[in-house]
């Protein structure tokens, strides 16, 4: 059974003037351990699809099964629990909290998992080491470079060992060197068993995924797998 199973997903934004039909009958399955890239032009519905997969938004219509659980019928409190335990997010603009140190920002990724407090520090230090920021643990986000901030955001996303990591244009604000490093870390995460779904404009980065889903005008235009 697929980890993520979307069937005829529709999504409408009720704007101030005219409703926007962001998704029009999207159906797709993503298996555990896959590395998927979602591409498409601006306004094609990529981020909306990612939000729905990440349970941050509910689809207007259609059926969504996450690990066999019907998301549309799940109450908000259980969805929050699902996000805390099974999903990690990485954003284009990092979304770190300015007043917290790197360490505390990463700790935030564990805070809502309701895990025992014991062992948290070790996990955070281990993940900091993994993304190469061990020496920056006490720094504030504004004292880091863009690449470092994004690595910190990735550390926060993976500190709880989520089943799925969702990354929305993770390299959009980075230069090519840092972008390469970030994509490398995501590949590494995938290699260790996590499902990674990346929204990206850049074909070179999409090509690093195992499967590319191209959206056009709210529909799945094309799906292709990387030849190995």
């Amino acid at each position: 059974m697929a980890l993520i199973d979307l069937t005829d997903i529709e999504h409408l934004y009720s704007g101030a003037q005219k409703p926007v039909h962001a998704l029009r009958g999207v159906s797709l399955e993503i298996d555990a351990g896959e590395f998927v890239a979602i591409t498409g032009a601006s306004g094609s519905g990529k981020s909306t699809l990612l939000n729905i997969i990440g349970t941050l938004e509910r689809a207007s219509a259609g059926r969504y099964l996450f690990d066999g659980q019907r998301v549309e019928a799940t109450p908000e409190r259980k969805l929050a629990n699902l996000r805390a335990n099974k999903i990690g997010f990485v954003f284009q603009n990092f979304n770190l909290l300015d007043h917290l140190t790197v360490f505390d920002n990463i700790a935030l990724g564990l805070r809502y998992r309701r895990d025992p407090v014991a062992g948290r520090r070790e996990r955070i230090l281990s993940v900091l080491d993994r993304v190469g920021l061990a020496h920056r643990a006490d720094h504030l986000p504004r004292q880091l470079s863009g690449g470092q901030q994004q690595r910190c955001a990735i550390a926060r996303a993976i500190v709880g060992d989520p089943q799925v990591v969702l990354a929305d244009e993770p390299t959009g604000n980075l230069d090519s060197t840092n972008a390469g490093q970030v994509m490398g870390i995501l590949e590494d995460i995938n290699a260790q068993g996590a499902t990674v779904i990346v929204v990206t404009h850049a074909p070179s980065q999409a090509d690093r995924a195992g499967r590319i889903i191209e959206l056009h005008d709210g529909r799945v235009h094309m799906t292709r797998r990387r030849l190995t």
Partner: protein
Amino acid sequence: MTGLLYSLRGIWLAVVRRWAVYLLMLSGLSMAYAAALIIGLYIHNELTFDRFLPDTERLYIAQAEYGPSGKPLVASDVAPAGVARWMRSDSRNIEAITRLVPVEWPLRSERRFVKERFYWADANFFDLVKLPALHGDLAHALAKPGSIVLTERMARQYFGRADVVGEVLATHDGLPLTVTAVLRNYPANTHLEREIFASGSTSYAMLSILDQRSTYLWPTSYTYFRLKPGVTKAAVTREMSQLSRKYWQGDNNLPVNFRAIPVVKLHFEPQGDGQMRPRGHLNSVRALMVVSVMILALAAINSAGLILAEAREREREMALYAALGATRFKQIGYIMREAALVNLASSVFGLAVVERVLPYVNAQLGVSLVLWASPFAVLTGVMVSVLIMSALCGMYPAMRITRFSQGGAAHKGHEPDNSINWPGWVTAQLALVMVLLIATHTMSRQWHFAMSEAPGFNGDKVLMVRLINSTTVTQQFSEAVRKIDGIELAAESFGVPTTEFARPGWIVEPSGRVISFTRNSVHPDFFKVFHVPILSGRNLSETYLTPEVPREILINAAASKALGFQKPSDAIGQIIDYEADQTFFSSKIVGVVPDLRFSTVYEPSHPMIFDGFAKYFTQINLRLSRDDPQVLNRIDTVWNEAAGGRVPIERQFYRDYLTNQYRDMYQQLRAFTLVSAVAMLQSVLGLTGLCIFLARHQLREMAIRRALGATFQELLILRLKPFLWPAVLSCVIAWPLAGLALSFWLRSFQAHIPVAISSFLLASALVLFVSAITLAIHSAHSIRCTPMRILRQE
């Protein structure tokens, strides 16, 4: 001009773009302006009592004090009528002296027939108290017996027009009173609560009767006098005491002392439970003044917070202006102009609100506030407030917002810190509202105490009917009224339970110690009518008419204690010698009753003795067995039959009398309820503004946390948690402050409730509950916003 229009257009566009924030600012500021205006009008009304009267620098009212020498026991705004006579003939210190005696007699014209409240006045009254004339010559208006002067308002009520000089009003027994002058309507904030003055030289006028009966020296007259230049008021009051001792012939108490109170200060320094307007309280006026300033200050701070909530957007705007060459001074000016315009608009709304609600406020407070009595003063006050408020609202945000704009947009590492000290002002707001609510609750408790517990007897359903100076009428009415179905019991009394004729008495022990008390004459059924139990011994057995005869008396528990008896039963059968009403008595104590209070809680309550001396009974107290208008109709019929229809009945329920006695306290209670409600609303608006501010600043954080798996409840707690300390701190500040202020306030009463912890708990619980609800609603709303959209907007 073009520049100004351009600037106004810019401000208008800003208002349209941020309409919700401006709506909030306008609501808060308008409410604050309206509240401050109403409080201002009320304070002005209080502080200008009688100030409309010209030439009052040397005009005083004589207050008389009674009791053993050197220890006055009872004080009153009214003095015996003889004092003015003696001063007029013997004094070297006064220019003139005059009197008023209040009366309630029927007055009839073709249009109106009522039992009217008016004054008998000496002929020279208008020489001293210079009320403005509309028609006629006030110098001689009261010279002739049978003349009467009334205000334009009363003239219109009785005759339908103002120029009524020469018209005739009929009074008791159809006797004529000819109008000799009409006064201009005078303001309501004067101690002169009646608007008709009849000549005291009229043969049947109380003043004339008092002047003919040199032994009748009960306190009856408001005595006004004007000092000669250079004379001290102490010299005059000393002279009054000396002349009283010289000429005294009455069978009641001699005033041991006099005090002179400037007419314009009578409102704040009355003595006794008099019939003048409700007394004023200077400390309450001061407290209201502080509160109104604080409400304005809070509204200004709230508005400043709302402007700062828009700071990030404003910084970009200001950076753009700076890039186009605007100096920082000009940028500050732009924000200040905006603040001034919002304040100006709010003050206009505030004025409109006051215009609208003033009749309701007047009805609630029992005052006659007028908004446009002095338009120039009101508008000047409003404009000055607008200027100060604009500076308070705009200056701080303007300085903060423009701080970085000169270097272009904020650059990395030097992001402007637009955080505000919101915990500080939340604490201040909550503390203020708490103090006001604690004060209001305590005032309410004190008012209820005064109305129900303080008297120590049950006056509900007791109707007091004033008896007239006619034995036939009194006897016929007293007998007939007792037979009416619906009258449970009746008992005559001299003054009590009102304080119209409080009489001190005292015992001088061989050691020189003086035991003071008040003497009360009542029918034996008086205690049954007012549900007063006999603690020990028995009730009085009869009434009597000869004061010299030793008679049985009752005393109250306080008197029993003052006389040195261990317990009430020890007093039974004891004979005491005492002095009262210029007479020495020797009476046997036959019973002891609990402590009763006939005076208001402002006045001291003394040990009491009760006797059955019936000569001066002034009223009959009727306990009604049911609330039935038919019973009242039957009482009126019986009265009309006894009085032959010549004198309308004068009756009131004890409860109404008490309500009237405490209308000043009720007025204060209403005023504080009003400002508490405004402060509470102001606080709700302030917290709403703060929520908007925090929502703007924390929305991204909330979204991040939500994406990381925080539940709605966790986010709500996270938003509300920072308010915990300000809430606790506000209690820490408000409780001792309120405790101190209320202890001070309660000390102005002779009998009062203790400061109760329940007031503090209730007020705090209410403030915290309303605050928590306000914060929770707005926080919940902001948390429910779609997070991902916000995360992508950065």
